[in-house]
Every structure is written in C-alpha cells, then in structure tokens.
C-alpha cells in the first residue's frame, strides 16, 4: 500500500514537472520562432551552416566521451525514425502505431543478410529499406478504407504480428535469443570502427532524410499529402487520388525506417524482438507529437528531447513510459500543435520571402476598418 502511494506521489510529482517543462519549452520555442522571423536569408544560412559544422566536429569534441558520442548516435537515429513517421503521420495525416515494425524489418534484414549470408553492409542496408518499403505497401493497401482509430488498430496489429513472427520463427530469426555478431561496415576498404564512423554514417542519413522530407513537402505530391490530411473529400474533389497519396506516404515512411533499422542492427551488432515493441512505436510517435506534427524542425527538436530524456533520467527509468503517456496527454491539452508548429513555420517562411506581406495585410485591414 505504501508502495502504491509512493508511485502515485511520484506520478503527480512528475506530472507537475512535465507541466512546467512544457510551458517553459513552449515559451522558449515561441520566442525563438519570433526571433527567427526577423532573421534574414543570409543569417539563416549562417545559422544552418553553424549547426552543420557543430554536427561535423562533435565527434572530435567528444573524443574522450564514448558514452555521450554513443548517445549522440542514438539521438540522430531517432531523428531519422521520427522524420520517417512524420511523413506518414505529419504530412499525410495517417495515424500509424506500428512504425517500429518497419524499423524491425530493416534491422532483421541487415542482421540475417550480413550474418547468415555474408552480404556487404551497404547492400544489406538498401535491402532493409526495400523490404520495409514492400511491407509498407502491403500495409498501405488494406488501410486505404480505414481512417483514424480503425487505421491505428490495424497498424498496432501489424506491429504486434511482426514482432510475434520474429519471436516464433526460430529457424530464421533465432527467436527471442536474437541475432548477435552483426559486423561493422567498411567504407572503400576501410573498416568503420567505433562510434565515430557510425556517427558520420547516421549524420549523412539524417541529412538525406531532412532533404527528402523538405523536397517532398515542397512538391505537388507533398501538397497532395497535406490535402488528404486536411480534408480527404475536398482533396478528392480537387483531383488528388487519396489512395495513391496514402500508399506513397506509407512506403516512403517505411523505407526510411527500414534504413534506420539496418543502421541500428549494425550499430549495436545485435538484434532481438524486444527492440521493436509497441512501446518503440509509441516513443517515436511521442517525438513527432511533442515536436509538432508535420513540422520538420519541430520533429527534430522532439526527437532530440525525447532521445536524451531517458539517458538523463536513468534513475527513474521505471517511470519512462508513464512519463511518455502523461507527456502525450498534456501536450494534447496544453499545446496540441507541438513545440514548433507547422503553422508558425508557414508564417515565418511567408514573412521572409516577402518581409512586408503580413504587415501589408494588417494595414489593409486597418484601413478597411476605418
């Protein structure tokens, strides 16, 4: 009984801390967004270059800190995963709770191909993406008729079925024991040793994923995805085929998650079904929601915060998923648009293309009012 009371007391305590943290972060990101509106194109490039240089030299700075470097690799990996889910959930608006299945497919493809068949890392990485993509397509088809909650249930089922197959198909996946001894990659004959090599591989994957997300967003297909997300009937009436859009989102999200899975398998040299539970999907989902659905910088921020958080809070790791749950619920109540919302980004990019456009509109309205 006292135990229960302690748990309850702790949960309430963490809730209060989360509440304050969300408020503080929200203020901070609002403030930062507003500041960024005033930043011109040149300075913005400088800022991006600065972040890029920092990311490039980070392993040198962390030469004596393998633990922090390893955490950095995991943070980058989660950025890729969160961005891949963001294509499905943020850009196309399809609630998928089985995203870890695609991640698992990539990881197991890497594990089986490299360990049992001695395939090269890079080929196995691409194969992982392809296999995940095929399953993304397969999952995409039955979900075309489903929306919202029903879709979510099917995707949960898909994730669970896949995990159960991994556990029970012993001859192929070695069941719960998992597959150890996944080799490190080599790059033009040089073996990638240690965390630094992996860091640069995943950094490239992050950059490529950001470019893919951004280019998709700015294309006719990206607008089609957003149209389906906002209003499927209107989208269909405007000549957008919602079925194609949804399948595109599922396949693309799955391919990227598959790549991330392949990387993960090689990075930790060992995979087992416990790495790819439903909770993993929820973790990725929480990152996307915390950061801001559909907003690329937001999702990156969400992934960074939630990938570091468990490392920082090792002492209370038992409460990890409780905290995720409370966090999701609180975000929905306090700040449903996420830390850096898509809306605020739109206003920003509108403002820096033509700095006076918003002002013009306001002055127009004002003069109209008089």
């Amino acid at each position, binding site marked *: 009984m006292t135990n229960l009371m302690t748990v309850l007391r702790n949960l309430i305590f963490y809730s209060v801390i989360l509440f304050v943290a969300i408020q503080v972060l929200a203020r901070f990101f609002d403030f930062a967004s507003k500041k960024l509106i005033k930043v011109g194109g040149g300075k913005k490039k400088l800022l991006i270059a600065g972040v890029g240089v920092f990311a490039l030299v980070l392993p040198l700075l962390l030469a004596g800190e393998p633990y922090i470097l390893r955490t950095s690799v995991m943070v980058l990996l989660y950025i890729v995963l969160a961005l891949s889910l963001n294509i499905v959930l943020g850009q196309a608006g399809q609630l998928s709770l089985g995203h870890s299945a695609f991640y698992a497919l990539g990881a197991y493809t890497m594990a089986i191909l490299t360990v049992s068949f001695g395939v090269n890392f890079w080929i196995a990485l691409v194969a992982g993406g392809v296999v995940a993509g095929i399953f993304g397509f397969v999952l995409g088809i039955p979900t075309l008729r489903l929306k919202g909650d029903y879709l979510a249930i099917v995707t949960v089922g898909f994730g669970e079925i896949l995990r159960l197959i991994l556990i029970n198909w012993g001859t192929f996946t070695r069941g719960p024991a998992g597959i150890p001894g996944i080799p490190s990659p080599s790059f033009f004959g040089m073996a990638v040793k240690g965390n630094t090599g992996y860091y640069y591989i995943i950094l490239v994957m992050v950059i490529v994923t950001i*470019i*893919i997300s951004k*280019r*998709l967003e*700015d*294309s*006719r*297909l*990206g*607008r*089609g995805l*957003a*149209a389906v*997300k*906002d*209003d499927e*009937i*209107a*989208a*269909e*009436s*405007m*000549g*957008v*085929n*919602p079925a194609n859009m949804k399948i*595109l989102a599922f396949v*693309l999200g799955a391919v990227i998650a598959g790549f991330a899975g392949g990387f993960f398998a090689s990075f930790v040299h060992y995979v087992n079904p416990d790495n790819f539970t439903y909770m993993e999907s929820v973790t990725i989902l929480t990152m996307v929601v915390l950061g801001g659905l*559909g907003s690329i910088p937001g999702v990156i921020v969400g992934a960074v915060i939630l990938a570091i958080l468990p490392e920082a809070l090792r002492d209370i790791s038992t409460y990890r998923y409780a905290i995720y749950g409370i966090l999701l619920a609180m975000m929905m109540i306090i700040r449903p648009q996420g830390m850096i919302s*898509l*809306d605020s980004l*739109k*206003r920003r990019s*509108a403002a820096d*293309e*033509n700095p006076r*456009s*918003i002002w*013009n*509109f306001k002055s*127009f309205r004002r003069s109209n009012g008089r």
Partner: protein
Amino acid sequence: MKILEASGISKVFGGLTAVSKVDFHIDEHEIVSLIGPNGAGKTTFFNLLTGIYEPTEGRVDFLGAELKKSKPFEITKLGMARTFQNIRLFSSMTVLENVMVGQHCRTSSSIFDALLHLKRHKLEEVRIRSVCEEILEFLDLTQYKDEIAVSLPYGIQRHVEIARAMASSPRLILLDEPAAGLNTNEKVEMTTLIRKIRDRGFTVLLIEHDMKLVMGISDRVAVLDYGNKIAEGKPEEIMKNDRVIAAYLGKGAEQNA
C-alpha cells in the same frame, strides 16, 4: 454544345428518394442555377454529378462520355471542379498552397522527380506557381496569398475556394451556395465574380438560395422539389411558374426580385 447531360438519374437512400428521375443538361458557357427548398436534393444532385455518390439509376454524360463509376478525382481530371456549401479549404495551407493543390491533376511529376529535383519537377513547380498566381490576380486575392487560408474572413474564403476550383483548369465549375453567409456587398461581389468566371470561358452550375443573385445572372434555372425537377427555363419564366411559387418562392416573390 451540351457539356453535361444527366438522363433520368435517381438516388435512393434506404427508403428515401433524394433525387428522382431528373433530366438535366448544361450547355457550354452557360450559367445554370439549381434552386429549390431545403432538402429538395440539390446537394445530392451535385454529389451525383461529381462522383461522390453513384446514381441508383440513370446516367450522367460529361463532355460526350459517360461517367460510369468514376471517382471524384477522375471526374475532376476530366474537367469538372466544385466548391462546397460549407467551405472546405485545406486548413494547414496558405491561400497560394490551397490553390496550388488544384493543379495537382494537371501535373505529373513523380516522387523521384521531386526528391532528385529533376528538371521536370522544377519546370512544373514554376508553371504551377505562375498559373496559380495568375488566378489569384484574376480574383483579386494576391494580397492574401501567403495567409493561412482558414484564418481569412468568410467572404474571402469563398473566393479562395473558387480560385482553387479554377486552378484545376475545369470546363465546368459547380458552385454549391457560393453566396451563403455573405453580406449584401459581398453578394454583389460574388455576382460580378461568377460573371467574370463565365466570361473567362468556364461553364457554371450554381446552387443558390439568394433569388436576386440567381435571377440576375442565370441563363437558365432548374427547380427541384422533393427530388423531382418541377420546372426549368429562363429566370423570368421560373418566377411566373405557379408550381415554383407554391413550392419555393412563395407569394410576393416578384416584388422581392
């Protein structure tokens, strides 16, 4: 030239006949209005034309070909675009982006073109943008192009929806109560706008309750009541038609219009 022809189309929901054996056609460059009391089946009729519902019986021909089980997006591609009675703009998008969605079915860049920034994608993006900016200019919406569409005043949103429909380069535009909820000034603007659209070469089918607007701009008016077409003809004829007056206009309509 007949651009659209519906022959004996009906739609039955369970035991309710929402549209019953309606014959109807639209000639090119016409403004045709569909009027009738609430629940007369006007919007259902619209949905039958645009492929959202499938007719229980009868057929619809558009540009000389039968629309048989065509999906709404296929019909849009054939050249029919619509607006909605309760505005359905894309809420996360700016005005320009909303209109750019209209060009979706007129472009064909694939995902690879977009991700690799191939020439086809770039040229298409430039074209989409210029087509849409031209439409916004035409409808005097340029000043709003970077605003989030749903944050704009209601009247402007109606115009944006029409811009979005125009962006799919249709032959026929269907407007579902474009003047609903607008004030007197805005209704006058809407009337001018519909004429402007027609003069640009589009054909317009209109559902509307505002008799002043309907009678002022329509070449032809069709009246639905309980799913049946009870009259069709020039505005003047419709206003004198006894059945229409009994069912819909009511006494004193002539003075009002």
